[in-house]
């Protein structure tokens, strides 16, 4: 792969793409190259949302994205250390509501919700947020507590 955009930033740090194969998925770059295993592989077919990360603040499925396709972008995963008001807000709501069982889907849910808050602003309604979570599956079926967490984040409860 040639071109001027030779790196991505992951949680604030530059990651050069020169040694990343052209066919590598962002999911594999994060998990196997960078050791950021907080981003989960669920279905690898774009159905479950477990691999959701933020690319320039927008939720994206890392399993269906080539690393080179997001060259020049800022990627944020659940390991992101820096303060991020939306991610922090969602994390606290998940903690307060106990919104996890096995935890495998949790990073995807947290980043999908944080992305929705970034897009829609702090006034996003519970209905908007829940609709935006349709692509995130919890195989424990622990949705009730996730809905409660959404209620804590939203302007009005669902």
């Amino acid at each position, binding site marked *: *792969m040639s*071109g001027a955009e030779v790196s991505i930033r992951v949680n604030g740090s530059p990651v050069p793409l020169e040694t990343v*194969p*052209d*066919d*590598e*998925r962002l999911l594999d770059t994060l998990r196997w190259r960078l050791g950021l295993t907080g981003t989960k592989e669920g279905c*690898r*077919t*774009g*159905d*479950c*949302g477990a691999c*959701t990360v933020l*690319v320039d603040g*927008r*939720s*994206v*499925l890392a*399993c*269906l*994205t*080539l690393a*080179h*396709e997001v060259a020049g972008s800022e990627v944020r995963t659940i390991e992101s250390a820096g303060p991020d008001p939306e991610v922090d807000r969602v994390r606290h709501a998940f903690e307060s509501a106990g919104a996890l069982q096995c935890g495998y889907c949790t990073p995807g849910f947290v980043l*999908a919700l944080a*992305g*929705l808050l970034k*897009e829609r602003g702090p006034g996003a309604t519970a209905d908007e947020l829940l609709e*935006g979570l*349709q*692509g*995130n*599956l919890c195989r424990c079926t622990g949705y009730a507590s996730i809905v409660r967490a959404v209620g804590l984040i939203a302007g009005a409860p669902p």
Partner: protein
Amino acid sequence: MAAFELVAPRSVDEAVAALRGGPRTEIGVLAGGTDLLLDLDEGRAEPTRVLSLRRLPWRTLDWAAGSLTIGSTLPLRALEDDPDVRQRLPGLWQAVRAVGSVALRHRATLGGNLGRAAPASDLIPVLLTLDAEVELVGPDGARRMLVDRFVRASRRTELGPHELIRSVRIPEPRRSAYLWQRVRPANDISQLAVAVARAGDESWRVAVGGIPPRATLLPDVAEELGRADPDDRRVARAADRAQRDVAIVADRRASEEYRRRLVGTMLRRAVRAVGQEVRA
């Protein structure tokens, strides 16, 4: 070693030249990638080169004198977020929101959906009812054609081996609606879908999707609806006609009988949805 080489040209000429660099079966075209990467995983496509369109200046949305031109690589989420799309082309807005999840729509594109021409495409039925035109670019310049002509059959289009989809043009705002039926909303595809729209001259367009081999316009059903606001009797006649006329097949997602019942019900609901929007 990578399974393919990724090329991302900065100009249309370079992109077209890249397509001419080898047999079409060995080159994959990548817009959002949400379908192509699945094909690669499942061995349905085995390109040695993948042409990425990400650097082409096609992520555009232009309203001009009532018509809308959508660049082929604009993420679907941007269409959904445009307040004019929602207000002036409600059927298109509803159909875009029926595609996958938010995270998928941040990458999936209209050009990809159209080029892919899946039988269950949510966007093709609506584009048919809007008399949308697709613009193709290739070595001999650009050409345009109606989406109805562009889509030939399941996964078959008029796209030449060295052509790319540049944009889709919708000639006018239309009162419209799109309804779908599927088992789960975000991670499933439609068993049946009905799109309806009302042209500037008050005539209707009706299209059915979700049934292989491709979405189809139903001009005789549209004719039944007439040009005045249709009363219940006319809507019922149109629904009966749709149930009789549509070529319905069974596949693993729905039986023929189920789909035939749905066509009538969903057509009635779609027409009423347009009526309500008029009153609102």
